[in-house]
């Protein structure tokens, strides 16, 4: 073995030469006359649109519809005197999120980097200054502190007990049932009819439940479609192709309108449960195809190698094939989750008061007639926030799992 000098055969990428803003613009925006023209035209159109939008938002728009109905947007017709339960739920979820962040980031040199601190600062300023959240900022600010606190604590715990990740998964799992209890009541708490669940709360609840149900189902369908057993394979393929050939609205209407006709009077499942099942069954078919794509991307040699090591089929799948296949399929799977989240808007046309549905109700209030642009823009920002958070999360997971260079 000859030793090579690291200088001459380094595999590290070449140093990136940092450009100042002026040379950067010259290189990327104004390299020749055509690009310069393009830059100017596009910048002109863009800034004209932005100026129009901003001037509309500051002068024409009447934003009071948002702060006056903020509670409705968040929780629908959920009884106001039971709001402390929603706050408790928010605190639990945020605490767990902080804890998970701390544990996952235990090996980072600084948990609170400059960007994160700026984010916290913006969040706090927003809560203090922005009208809809101002009355609640007494509760929201401690929740931000809770996230920071649990993150710091999680980091310490994660360093001391490396195996704590498993327990956090369990805690998330249990928190779902705590959430169900806090929202729906029972076991000592006042019951809240599912009819009163609404707004963002219902959107998130249906989306989370739908995602949690469709993932295992989609995984099984994908494995079933690649199974060597002809009946399992046939049934999985049939299911996937039938569901993919039907629009989601049709599935939802079937759940809301037709299922009650088949069942005996009185034994009708809850409308929200029906909607969740319809969403999950629908998404599972698409998810199965995403997972199948991942499975097909794993080289056949992997399976042969596993079998020659003496692993049986379940362990081959669980330890060798699936970890690689799911890693490949993450972008597509998260894409499916995002579209499931957005598909919850369809629940408004089957009469559930989720975020879009409650928006329609608020627009029918004579005091806010014609405030379409304001309300729909606000809803769009909320949907964007959650979808972007999901896609950001998936990118982080991809980075974390990226083992090849």
């Amino acid at each position: 073995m000859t030793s090579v000098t690291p200088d001459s055969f380094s595999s590290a990428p070449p140093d990136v030469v940092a450009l100042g803003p002026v040379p950067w613009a010259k290189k990327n925006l104004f390299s020749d006359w055509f690009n310069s023209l393009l830059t100017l035209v596009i910048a002109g159109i863009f800034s004209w649109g932005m100026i129009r939008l901003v001037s509309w938002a500051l002068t024409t728009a009447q934003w009071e519809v948002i702060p006056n109905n903020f509670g409705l947007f968040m929780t629908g017709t959920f009884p106001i005197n039971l709001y402390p339960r929603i706050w408790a739920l928010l605190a639990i979820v945020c605490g767990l999120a902080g804890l998970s962040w701390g544990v996952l980031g235990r090996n980072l040199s600084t948990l609170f980097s400059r960007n994160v601190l700026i984010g916290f600062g913006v969040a706090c300023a927003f809560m203090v200054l922005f009208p809809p959240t101002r009355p609640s900022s007494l509760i929201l600010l401690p929740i931000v502190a809770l996230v920071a606190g649990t993150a710091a604590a999680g980091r310490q715990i994660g360093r001391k007990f490396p195996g704590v990740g498993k327990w956090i998964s369990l805690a998330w799992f249990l928190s779902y049932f705590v959430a169900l209890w806090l929202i729906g009541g029972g076991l000592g708490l006042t019951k809240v009819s599912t009819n009163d669940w609404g707004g963002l709360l219902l959107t998130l609840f249906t989306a989370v439940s739908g995602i949690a149900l469709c993932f295992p189902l989609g995984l099984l369908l994908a494995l079933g479609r690649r199974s060597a057993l002809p009946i399992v394979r046939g049934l999985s393929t049939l299911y996937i192709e039938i569901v993919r050939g039907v629009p989601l609205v049709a599935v939802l209407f079937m759940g809301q309108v037709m299922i009650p006709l088949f069942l005996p009077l009185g034994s009708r499942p809850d409308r929200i449960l029906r909607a969740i099942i319809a969403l999950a069954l629908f998404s599972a078919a698409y998810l199965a195809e995403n997972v199948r794509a991942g499975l097909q991307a794993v080289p056949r040699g992997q399976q042969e190698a596993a079998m020659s090591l003496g692993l049986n089929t379940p362990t081959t799948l669980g330890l060798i094939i699936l970890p690689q296949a799911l890693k490949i399929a993450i972008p597509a799977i998260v894409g499916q989750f995002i579209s499931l989240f957005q598909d919850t808007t369809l629940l408004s046309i089957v009469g559930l008061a989720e975020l879009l549905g409650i928006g329609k109700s608020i627009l029918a209030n004579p005091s806010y007639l014609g405030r379409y642009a304001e309300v729909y823009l606000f809803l769009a920002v909320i949907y964007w926030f959650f979808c972007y958070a999901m896609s950001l999360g998936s990118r982080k997971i991809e980075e974390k799992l990226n083992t090849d260079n």
Partner: protein
Amino acid sequence: MRKWGLLAAALGLTLAACGGSTTTTADGGGDDTAPAAGGSRLDVVKDRGQLICGVDGGIPGFSFVDESGTYSGLDVDVCKAVAAAVLGDAEAVEYRRLDSTERFTALSGGEVDMLSRNTTWTISRDSSVGLEFAPTTFFDGQGMMVKTASGITSLEDFAGKAICVETGTTTELNLTDQMRQLGVDFEPVVFQDADAAYAAYAEGRCEGMTSDKSQLVARRSTLPNPEENILLEVTMSKEPLGPVTVNNDSTWFDVVKWTTFGLMQAEEFGITSENVATFEGTENPDIARFLGAEGTLGTDMGLPNDFMVQVITQVGNYGEIFERNLGADSQFELERGQNALWTEGGLMYSPPFR
């Protein structure tokens, strides 16, 4: 393999938990949405202590959610009146939002006790769909909105002028029929979408805008200068809207029907939510019977004898409901028109309470 077991357990638990919440709907246990064998829906509602009323939830003036999260509107007030009559509490209502496609299946399947959801009374719905229509609570009809400055006062004035209308609706057909009958040559400007149609009207692309009157009135308040637009005194189609119950349950239908009539009769008697107490011990035998001081009108229907006192105290008479939601006390300032009492030239007419 342990992971799979956990996953399966999770799935089962989730379903069980969600399933558990099904029975908590509306009542907190028991599948009382089904009518007892041979019994009436009235007993179901009484046992439950709550009325389940199907509403739209998104029609200005008829049903919407106000800032405090409570349902309001004319349709909602009808639900409240029935709840006050049966249970003595106008707030004992659970509102179920129903889409137009599922409203009838929800009713016939027993998911809701009654509909109060802008449903037009037609012969096919009454006969083949299997519904019972309680008295009309709002006579809607296709109307015409014009700008005051245009000087148009009748449909004949539209000769050579443009009218905005939504395409593919009965509205468009009614308009052409009506105009052909009158022999008026007008220019229809059709739009796929209501928002675009009203925007074009606001910009002055057409002199007139036609749609259901209640819609026109609601939309008028969103126009730049609402007071510069008026509705012509013309009705091109009949849209009687009222509460609906399911067929073959006369007992329950009678309750809904006579509660609705009671709202009109109260207005005819001049009894309002404010002065109802002064009618206690009245000499007028008609009013004494109506309010349950004499006779057994209420108990004969299976209701408390003073059910109308509860309705009027908690909800008000029809005139109050109308003015509050659509009339002078609301943004819409809709004229009573056909919805006035028969004694004032309208169509609101209650058979006698005796």
